[in-house]
């Protein structure tokens, strides 16, 4: 009880212990759900864009319930930038790889020469690779948009 009182006394205006604890518990599940939405996009509603937005929303939620510094402990600005670049690169790289292996640009069935999964199997698997790239890019851009806009550019105080 005393510990609770001490922790409550430390909170700034607008922060609540109940909300913070709930968000702490919820965030891993939100991120897990985002991953599920990305990788299960073949069989259910979902895909890279939607899953990426869910993943990005988890960081936005952390930044809202705590402050921005805490949210950036989960995902630093540098790692976020790297993930965004990697996401865009996965998509364009897959497309370029198709052209290198003798097919058309973005024709995934050409990748059959690299790993034999069959042309139709590669068209299914190529979509999966591309969706992961889209998801990474969308996640990093969503988080970056909120962080930069919310803190007026200095990435420190936040909302």
């Amino acid at each position, binding site marked *: 009880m005393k510990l609770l009182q001490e922790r409550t006394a430390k909170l700034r205006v607008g922060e609540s212990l109940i909300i913070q604890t709930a968000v702490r518990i919820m965030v891993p599940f939100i991120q897990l759900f985002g991953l599920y939405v990305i990788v299960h996009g073949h*069989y259910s509603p979902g*895909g890279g864009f939607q899953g990426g937005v869910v993943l990005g929303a988890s960081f936005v939620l952390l930044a809202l319930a705590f402050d921005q510094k805490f949210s950036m402990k989960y995902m630093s600005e540098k790692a976020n930038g790297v993930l965004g670049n990697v996401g*865009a690169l996965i998509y364009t790289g897959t497309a370029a790889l198709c052209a290198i292996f003798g097919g058309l640009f973005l024709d995934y069935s050409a990748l059959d020469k690299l790993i034999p999964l069959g042309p139709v199997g590669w068209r299914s698997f190529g979509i999966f690779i591309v969706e992961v790239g889209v998801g990474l890019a*969308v996640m*990093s851009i969503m988080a*970056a948009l909120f962080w930069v806009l919310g803190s007026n550019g200095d990435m420190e105080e936040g909302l």
Partner: protein
Amino acid sequence: MKALALLTTLITGAILLYGTMDFPAFGDPQSPAAIHLSAYFIEEAVHETHVPNLVTAVLGDYRGYDTMFETVVIYCAGLAVVSVLRKKRSKTQENKS
């Protein structure tokens, strides 16, 4: 000024409503949007890509260019926001760290 804006809005809305006279009714299975390309996607997408979710199949395979440049667009948007707004740290904090 506000009256002019309202008038422009109302005239635009009236023109658009007049345009909807030629549009197909809501939920018409024989509407022009439903008989040309989408019939091919619905019939053949599962055979050609083995993806049951047609939206994902069309998004990732048939319209791959669209989605690729979509990703490039949001990437550029993120770059633009960061480069327009991002400030360097003030000097007092640089001294601290």
